[in-house]
């Protein structure tokens, strides 16, 4: 009511002065009720930013691209370099190692100062990851010996552990080199009778194995600044592998980066190619329509009906991958040839719909050319859908690559790919899980990130959702 009274037009004006007719100027007290003008892309970006999941996914994708392309510049380790001293090493394992002389076969005669004077089964040299040397006093009447090794303390004749070697004849020493890790081993010796049968007596000795590295290896791997000052017995730190190593001692981090290059190459290039082809194909069919449309779409149906995996493998065979050649290019060609119809159908549907919209008819009536219609109406209205298709196609392609590499149809060794790394890691899943977990996690995170980003983009780019805010 108050407002009503104060309003100049509502109040009774007794007299009019000339000042009443002056312009008010620009200092209007009324607030601007106009929204800031935002372009379609700005609007989409705003909405994407508001979507937390999509934003996190976007960061992940950016991080992944950095990891793939900038990573190898920072982490300069050859992904194919094998470090036999550090095979299947878990991340964060102890890297200290003693420097020793290069390995030379042992004749069983020399003995360590510490074991001299000991009787029975004894460790004849400092036990290390290079070799554990065992020596024993001959057992009367023995026709041979069986050497066992265990990682748990034996509790009786039946639990001596892993049989290492059956020694025939009078040889009274054995040098164990099988997969020695820096831990405690229990070696047991069972004498054999004349016919080669094992008796019930046994002797056990404990060996605490230390990790060692040879001088040559230290120099070859460039582990110290001044190799000439290196003496056997010194302690060095082995090469650092933040994510551990695989079954041939190759750095997991470097291999993951190398694998990412393969995965992203396929994952980005293949969708780009087949989506572009699908767009052109579908748009042509939809825009021209009629018999051509029928013809085009029936052909697309035909391609969809082809069994994907079978044809993928057939293509790879037909392209003929020679020994040592990578199957990546044939894989990409096969992916492009078989994957475009989905995009083509989608774009055709969009174009058909837009073609019948009132504003297109209006533009036609006003004499707009086909070129104008395409650039002004068709492309901007389908672009969102195309982008979404693209982001959904990326994880599919990455997953396909990983799968084909997993079944051994992808990269040639020693090149790594996430799929092939998973395949290799699977075999040691129980003993060295990190070899499977890291590549599998990379595949999962990448596919999830692209999917969520695609989801977010779909919401953000949908023009009809603009009004809901």
């Amino acid at each position, binding site marked *: 009511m108050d407002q009503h009274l104060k309003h100049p037009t509502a109040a009774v004006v007794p007299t009019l002065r000339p000042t009443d007719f002056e312009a008010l100027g620009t200092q209007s007290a009324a607030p601007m009720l106009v929204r800031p003008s935002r372009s379609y892309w700005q609007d989409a970006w705003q909405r994407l930013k508001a979507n937390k999941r999509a934003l996190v996914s976007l960061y992940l994708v950016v991080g992944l691209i950095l990891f793939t392309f900038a990573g190898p510049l920072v982490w300069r380790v050859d992904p194919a370099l094998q470090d036999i001293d550090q095979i299947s090493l878990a991340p964060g394992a102890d890297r200290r190692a003693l420097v020793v002389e290069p390995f030379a076969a042992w004749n069983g005669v020399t003995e360590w100062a510490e074991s001299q004077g000991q009787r029975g089964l004894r460790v004849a040299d400092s036990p290390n990851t290079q070799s554990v040397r065992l020596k024993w006093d001959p057992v009367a009447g023995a026709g041979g010996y069986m050497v066992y090794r*265990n990682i748990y303390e034996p509790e009786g004749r039946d639990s001596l*552990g892993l049989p290492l070697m059956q020694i*025939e004849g009078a040889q009274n020493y054995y040098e164990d080199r099988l997969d*020695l890790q820096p831990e405690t081993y229990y070696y047991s010796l069972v004498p054999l009778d004349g016919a080669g049968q094992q008796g019930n007596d046994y002797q056990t000795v404990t060996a605490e194995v230390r990790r060692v590295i040879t001088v040559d290896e230290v120099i070859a791997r460039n582990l110290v600044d001044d190799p000439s000052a290196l003496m056997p017995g010194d302690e060095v730190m082995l090469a650092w592998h933040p994510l551990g190593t695989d079954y041939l001692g190759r750095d997991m981090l470097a291999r993951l980066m190398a694998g990412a290059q393969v995965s992203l190459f396929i994952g980005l290039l293949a969708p780009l190619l087949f989506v572009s082809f699908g767009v052109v194909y579908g748009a042509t069919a939809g825009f021209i329509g009629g018999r051509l449309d029928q013809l085009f779409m029936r052909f697309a149906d035909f391609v969809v009906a082809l069994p994907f995996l079978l044809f993928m493998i057939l293509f790879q065979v037909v392209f003929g991958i020679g020994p040592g050649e990578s199957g990546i290019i044939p894989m990409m060609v096969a992916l492009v040839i078989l*994957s475009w119809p989905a995009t083509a159908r989608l774009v055709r549907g969009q174009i058909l719909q837009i073609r019948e919209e009132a504003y297109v008819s209006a533009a036609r009536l006003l004499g707009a050319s086909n070129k104008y219609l395409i650039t002004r109406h068709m492309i901007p209205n389908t672009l969102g859908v195309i982008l979404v*298709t693209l982001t959904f196609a990326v994880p599919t392609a990455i997953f396909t690559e990983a*799968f084909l590499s997993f079944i051994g149809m992808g990269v040639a060794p020693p090149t790594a790919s996430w799929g092939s790394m998973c395949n290799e890691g699977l075999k040691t899943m129980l*003993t060295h899980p990190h070899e499977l977990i890291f590549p599998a996690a990379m595949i999962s995170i990448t596919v999830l990130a692209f999917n969520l980003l695609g989801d977010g983009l779909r*919401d953000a780019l949908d023009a*009809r959702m603009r009004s809901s805010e």
Partner: protein
Amino acid sequence: MLGACLAVRDDCPNRFYQIDRDMKQSESQSESTQSLPAQAPGDRLTQAASRQLALYAAIVVIALAAAMFGLNYLASLTSSAAGMSRQAVDVENNIITSYLREEPPQMNSLRSSDAVSSMVMAHVMEGLLRYDENSQLAPGVAERWEQDGSTVTFWLRDDARWSNGEPVTAHDFEFAWKTVLAPATGSQYAFLLYPILNAEAANNGEISTDEIGVEAVDDRTLVVTLETPIAYFDRMVAYMTFMPVNEAFYEQTNGRYGADADQMLYNGPFIMTSWVHGASMQLRKNPYYWDADRIKLDGLNYAHMTSDSNTLQNLFKDGQIAIADLTSEMLEEAMFQRWPLSQFMEGTTFYTEFNHRPDRLTRNLNLRKAMLLVHDPSELVNRVIKLPGYLPAETLFPRWVEGMNGPFREEYPLPPLQRDVEKAREHLQMALDELGLEELPPLVFLSSDTPVARIQSEYYQEVFRRYLGIELLIDRQVFRQRLEKMTAGDFDLVGAGWGPDYNDPLTFADLFASWNLNNRGRYSNPELDAQVRIAQSSLDPQERTDAFGEIHRIIREQVVIMPDYERGYVYVTDPRVKGIVRHVFGAETDFTNAWIDVDAGDDQ
């Protein structure tokens, strides 16, 4: 994995449609999701719907679980082991349960050629000779035997019986061997009998089988005439192809001999009482066996036919089988469980074979020497393959090969293989000079696709690249494809292996003779050929052994191959079962000497 990928692929078109559909619904949806504070009336409906969905999901999960248990129960009713003891060791009935790697294609000793048949055959049949508990040849049906030049005479024991009570006679052997060689039989292993006079010609259909040099002089004397005198014929007759067949019974089976448990006549320690094809076999003690006192078990069940190592390990863990091979994955658990482990060397050697054809670079000796000089089998086996039971190979001849008075390798020692990078590079330079090359083009390494071969090939790739700068291209092929490529000579190096066919070093020694078709690299050296001929034809053991020693030396000096590893297994046995023997020849796993030690089971 396959299903997953297909599903993703199938998803694609649907998902795009879904986007379309979602767009149409997006108005209402986006309002409900994006303006949460103002509760729309539709939300209650959504909540109710999701509750209902959750309920359905729970019901489905429960139903699936119930179905699984039900099916599992049904499966156990109809299982292969139904009606059979499911225990690894049946102390009451004195029966052991074990497994077969696969179903034997047939139990017809005339035609069988596979290891599984051979293993079962060694339990239910007995040839002239057999392998004893120390893997040594022992008299079987033959009491004694004698070789005089090219004539071998076997005297059969008079108490050997078929499982129908009839005596086993020399005629049964004559009939069996002649039937093996008859072209109509089509036996794949007929070639094993080729040392017998006229055997090859008869097998090729050139002459009648009557002219084959094997004759039953009387019921208890078998005289074999050989084509040329060979020193190892007695070692061959323990093989299953040489086992006897009762003629009357064979005729009566109408060509179904060995196809079923009742289509066979047995003369071995056990008889087969049931054979459920693809599922199980039951063996029981043969009362007619001449040495029945030696057999301590009353029966043996092969209750499972599978080669999946995980399944076998689980079966062992559940106490359903008495023996199982271990993979390195299970080793730690096996030690933790304190299972008794044993080792068995299969007797095979694996090596990398060079292609010696004239158009190949690997024909160059210095190149081969350079590669051998950086090759370290000990590193390969101990640090890269690191499977329990594998041992580094030093030569083509495996450890079990005997010389005159002891291990062959000790009598003819070779210098140990030691990596010497400098010397290797010298040889490589010489090779390049001889070949007139600046740089070596990449070499093709043909490899099989087993896990071990994979690791090995990638390790080689790095070793030769690192020390010699030689690039290896890995050509990974499945077994048959690899064999085809090997035969065609489509490789520079190939990972190969060889197992013995009979207990004589010759089974390895003639491998690189220029006429041997298994010499895939086409190595040809008159010097080596001459030694192989001596080993084949000489009857003097010392002369033969020396010839083997020469072959051994030539193969190393000429670097015909690079030795990789000898394959073995680590296996676990039930502590209550004693006396299981594993042979390089004959039955791979031999239960004929096994017995159940009840006391050993008490602490289990």
